[in-house]
């Protein structure tokens, strides 16, 4: 049994036919070739496959591709503007917020959404958010610093009116 779906990924519309048991993560990687979304545990624990459904982060391994028919998905490939990295990506590069890089796309997708809701988070809040992501290199200190630096960069590029 196959189901036809139409989904917008990173601004581009795709029509595909999928088996209902195909997860969104497998659909993005195997049907669309968007391998920036990483697959770690495939049962919702590690956070590596986090993408945005509309504007909210979700686990791509915990949704079926058939469920995103008619919806809008953004992956790590969709957040830079041309050659210019997203400020959160830029901060991870500048602060050495990644080692092997496997967990990085998921953390960045979560961090972007987190910083929209909490533009000036405390270290404790950053760590609470990171509890939903596993870094097997255990490089959490630099990840926390990268997210702090990204928060600062985002606040200075979009200063709030007095």
């Amino acid at each position, binding site marked *: 049994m196959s189901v036809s779906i139409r989904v917008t990924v990173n601004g581009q519309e795709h029509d595909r036919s999928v088996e209902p048991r195909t997860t969104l993560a497998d659909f993005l990687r195997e049907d669309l070739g968007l391998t920036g979304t990483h697959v770690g545990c495939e049962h919702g624990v590690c956070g590596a496959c986090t993408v945005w459904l509309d504007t909210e*982060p979700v686990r791509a391994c915990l949704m079926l591709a058939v469920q995103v028919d008619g919806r809008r998905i953004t992956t790590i490939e969709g957040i830079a503007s041309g050659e210019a990295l997203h400020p959160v990506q830029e901060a991870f590069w500048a602060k050495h917020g990644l080692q092997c890089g496997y967990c990085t796309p998921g953390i960045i997708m979560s961090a972007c959404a987190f910083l929209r809701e909490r533009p000036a988070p405390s270290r404790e809040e950053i760590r609470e958010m990171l509890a939903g992501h596993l870094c097997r290199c255990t490089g959490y200190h630099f990840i926390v610093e990268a997210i702090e630096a990204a928060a600062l960069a985002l606040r200075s590029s979009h200063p709030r009116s007095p």
Partner: protein
Amino acid sequence: MKPAPFDYTAPSTVDEAVSALSDAGDDAKVLAGGQSLIPMLALRLARPTRLVDINRIAGLDGIREASGMLEVGALVRQRALERWAGPRSPLFSEVLRHVAHPPIRNRGTVVGSVVHADPASELPALLLCLEGVVVARGPGGERMIAADRFYRAPLTTSLGADEVATAVRFTLPPAGAGWGFAEVSRRHGDFALIGAVAMLTRAGGGPVTRARLAFFGVGGTPVRGLPAEQALEGREPTPARLAEAARAAAAVLSPDDDIHATAAYRQRVAATLAERTLGAALARCGGRT
């Protein structure tokens, strides 16, 4: 692709969903948020022949407060209730903050967590503490199932295989009630090893008029702390009496040993958490819930 093959249907009404479940016998599962079901499919702990996806049904995403009840529809995401609770209910805010992580709460539903019935999850215990009901629709129509008759065993409830839980209703604490919530887990967002939620009301600064306590992670289902409730109601809530009530409630629990903690540890921590949550509830009496 890790899940075994299944037949998929996404009905647009609750009645169609009920028919799709009835037609499939005992072998169909409802898919709402999918944050517990999809991992079970991936690990092949569940192999339903049919998934009935209720996400396209209109009218199940409402949060309504009426006559002392809070009704939460089957498609209300945990994150949506968390946002609703932000300016309104410190109790619901605190409980929901402990349910997994934001990306999970963005999809996971309140009703789904209640119905999935993991004995270590927070929302079933909250439903029990607030004497809530599950609203179920089946081939014979709608029925209400009280929380204390809903949970039977781990992942097992009195909901029929051909019924859809369309909403849950929490009884909102009366004005002036105090609340307490605490859990012990390995990391923030993990399933709790042990947890407790409590609610107290007092007559002025006098005796306790109503006490409610529920534990999670201490057995096959969430458990009401009835001995503590009975020990406190009608009496002055002195620190010694709270401690005694907490010990009495923990003494009748029968938790299991598992890889994470021994039964003896769970029982001892349950007593401590009961005392802390009852103490916090007492301190908050007269404030907001």
